[in-house]
């Protein structure tokens, strides 16, 4: 069966992007039932910082306390296996292989995440006495993400038969886009308390992204063409991949200029592998170098790290590291604002892709490879390339903000369920993203990529990262997350 986008609704049933929206909105809707006193999401397993393993995790809501840790784990597995399995069926994946791979990813994600919650790893310094410990790494409560990534990378690079076994379920973009829809709930909830800050973040993110675009693309295109002698098609696809947002930008650009499909596929391989280096290095680097610029760091991350999955994952690690470090100094920043700043710039970038690709298509068809009077670029191309998960993200953001503003009396009841969706459910999808990304990141793929791999490395270190940081600093400097309780 072919997959051609002809009508505006094509892809709604079978694309990962749309399935992130369906999965996101479905669980958001179920979570909202707590407004009427119906809790259908409290079974979700939620980890806690622990020294006694029997208290490492449990149901998110007291309504399901009877399930205990293992009952909650099993329920969480069954519900999400069914939901993602339905998605896999409609996405025309091999459902049996998907469920088998998903099960492995699910177990690795949870084991890593729970280990990461052990008090010596996660507890902040000011909690040592309360937890009865005398030393610790104070990495924050989601340090398990790093472990999940490490395990995934081990599988992807040293246990290739296992990597092949889980391949059908390795959908980091689907997982992270679903999680980002849930982040919209958080943003709505935070906007109720700090609307001005959320608005400033959105506007500054848009401005920074626009400026960064104008600088990245022409500089790297010129470098690719003049110094590295890349053919025009390769240079255009390559510089969209590294300048804009990785794989989706390189596919959009290649489609816009009607390049052979092999070009974006090869560029995408580079993007995915290099994104892993960025994810591993940048959060710790930014935290060490600029501990007093959390929002600048987050925004720079969004403009530097390619692929939504790697950016969100890097943003989550940065958030953990910086919030934990600030807590050690007695500054209690609210969680997730740094992650939000990383996502905000990335989401603006994602939204610009369709427009950028459309302009590029016009340029290519009417200027570069002109065939007067013959070829037409349909405006619908902009819609087909629009990242649909953004619809879910914005919907959740505005829905929570709207309900909370219009009916403040039910805010608490709303967040009882929606908070479970945007809390442990969202974080679970982050953990799954980390494992899945690790499993598909095979560093040996860099072999044989020659000058493209060198150009990518140089562009990233010398052009993208410094300019992104400078632009982020110009638009976000001095912004810090609101304090806990403010």
């Amino acid at each position, binding site marked *: *069966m*072919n*997959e*051609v*986008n*002809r009508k505006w609704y094509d*892809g709604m049933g079978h*694309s*990962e*992007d*749309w399935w992130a929206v369906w999965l996101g909105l479905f669980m958001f809707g179920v979570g909202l039932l707590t407004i009427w006193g119906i809790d259908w999401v409290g079974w979700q397993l939620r980890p806690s910082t622990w020294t006694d393993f029997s208290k490492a995790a449990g149901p998110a809501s007291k309504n399901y306390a009877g399930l205990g840790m293992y009952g909650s784990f099993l329920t969480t597995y069954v519900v999400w296996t069914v939901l993602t399995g339905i998605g896999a069926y409609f996405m025309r*994946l091999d459902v049996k292989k998907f469920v088998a791979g998903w099960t492995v990813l699910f177990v690795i994600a949870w084991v890593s995440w729970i280990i990461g919650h052990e008090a010596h790893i996660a507890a902040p310094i000011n909690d040592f006495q309360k937890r009865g410990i005398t030393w610790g790494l104070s990495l924050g409560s989601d340090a398990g993400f790093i472990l999940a990534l490490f395990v995934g990378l081990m599988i992807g690079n040293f246990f290739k038969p296992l990597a092949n076994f889980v*391949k059908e379920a*390795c*959908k*980091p*973009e*689907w997982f992270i886009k679903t999680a980002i829809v849930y982040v919209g709930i958080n943003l709505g909830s935070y906007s109720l308390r700090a609307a001005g800050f959320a608005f400033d973040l959105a506007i500054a993110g848009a401005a920074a992204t626009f400026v960064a675009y104008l600088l990245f693309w022409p500089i790297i295109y010129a470098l690719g063409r003049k110094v590295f002698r890349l053919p025009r098609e390769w240079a255009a696809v390559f510089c969209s991949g590294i300048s804009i947002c*990785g*794989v*989706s930008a390189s*596919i*959009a650009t*290649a*489609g*816009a200029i*009607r390049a*052979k*499909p*092999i070009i*974006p*596929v090869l560029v*995408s391989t580079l993007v995915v592998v290099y994104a892993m280096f960025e994810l591993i290095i940048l959060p710790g680097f930014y935290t060490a170098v600029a501990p007093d610029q959390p929002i600048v760091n987050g925004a720079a991350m969004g403009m530097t790290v390619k*692929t939504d999955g790697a950016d969100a994952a890097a943003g989550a690690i940065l958030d953990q590291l910086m919030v934990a470090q600030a807590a050690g100094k007695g500054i209690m920043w609210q969680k997730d604002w740094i992650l939000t700043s990383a996502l905000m710039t990335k989401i603006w970038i994602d939204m610009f892709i369709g427009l950028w690709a459309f302009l590029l*298509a016009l340029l290519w068809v009417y200027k570069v*490879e002109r*065939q007067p*009077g*013959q*070829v*037409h*670029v*349909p405006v*619908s*191309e902009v819609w*087909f*390339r629009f990242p649909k998960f953004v619809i879910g993200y914005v919907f959740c953001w505005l829905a929570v903000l709207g309900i909370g503003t219009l009916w403040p009396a039910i805010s608490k009841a709303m967040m009882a369920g929606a908070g479970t969706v945007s809390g442990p459910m969202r974080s679970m999808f982050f953990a799954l993203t980390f494992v899945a990304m690790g499993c*598909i990141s095979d560093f040996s793929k860099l072999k044989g990529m020659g000058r493209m791999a060198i150009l990518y490395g140089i562009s990233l270190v010398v052009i993208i990262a410094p300019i992104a940081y400078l632009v982020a600093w110009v638009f976000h400097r001095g912004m810090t997350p609101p304090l806990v309780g403010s």
Partner: protein
Amino acid sequence: MKSDIDLVIVHDGEKWIARNDEVQAVGRTLPELDADLVRSLRRAGGFRGRLLTVFMGFDFATLPTWVRQYASHYFNRVVRVQV
């Protein structure tokens, strides 16, 4: 957009191929493909002398599975051909 003919377009690693149940056109470049399309339409008969609007939608399912999670569209093009 309304079109007279709808084709699915793919790339096999060497050349572009646009086809439906009745017509198939092949070309190493898109201008070659369009020229072959005119020839194919002439061979198919029934279109002679007409100015046709041809829609070509790229079959995204021909891209590797791992890359399809990052995007869901390659390109559509609309060509006007005098048969």
